């Protein structure tokens, strides 16, 4: 491969990595900053250190042994190599957490639907009492 070709390939890699960093940051921020992560981790029986995400407020990190800032995978070749090696684990862990959030949300929706069915007779009575009072 010529040097010029390598540069072109590296440019391509940089673009892919920028997209990867953006996607991961969005998911990790969503999971750890916007969803009750402790609930999700407990339900999914996931220890955050298994792959290793750092979810302190601020920059998003992933780590195996060393702490990498996610955005580093857009410009740091060592970070890119480390990321490539860890990506299947990262992907699995994030997917199981997202699955877990989805499962919890579905359970809560089912419980809410069941509740409205159970409360319907009381709600109807409440409405009737209101009508009578209005009369």
């Amino acid at each position: 491969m010529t040097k010029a070709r390598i540069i072109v390939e590296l440019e391509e890699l940089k673009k892919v990595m920028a997209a990867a960093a953006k996607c991961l940051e969005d998911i990790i921020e969503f999971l750890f900053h916007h969803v009750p992560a402790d609930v999700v981790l407990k339900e999914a029986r996931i220890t955050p250190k298994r792959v290793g995400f750092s979810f302190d407020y601020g920059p998003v990190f992933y780590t195996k042994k060393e702490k990498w800032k996610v955005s580093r995978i857009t410009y740091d070749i060592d970070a890119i190599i480390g990321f490539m090696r860890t990506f299947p684990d990262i992907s699995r862990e994030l997917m199981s957490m997202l699955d877990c959030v989805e499962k919890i949300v579905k359970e809560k929706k089912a419980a809410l639907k069941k509740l409205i069915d159970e409360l319907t007779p009381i709600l109807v009575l409440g409405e009737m009492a209101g009508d009578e009072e209005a009369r």
Partner: protein
Amino acid sequence: MVVEELREIEKAMGKAAKVIGSILEFLGREPIRTLKWEKDKEPKYCRPHNINPKLILPMPGGMEEEVPVGDIARDLGAIVRFIENFPKIYRELMEILDLLEELVKERKRALKELADELAPILVVEEL
């Protein structure tokens, strides 16, 4: 007879408080803020909080009252106002949960797409 009926209502309300409390506790930390950011929507009837989730129940005369969810299991006034407002509370919570589900699905799709896009590079790396 009335006492028995009241016992039944008390049981139903205890269950309602448990279900709604659990949903509000789950949503309580940050999803509400996410939804507000993404949809510019402020919850009107529910005030989720980690420790003590509350319902915003309209009072006669146009006033509002913050009622801890646990009160609907024992306080008669809270029970009456809760029953009057339950359809609205239900709609609001369901809408929030729907939106959260949609956001999770979007993230899952993005992650799958990313895995597909990276697959060729990962194969090269393995080789």
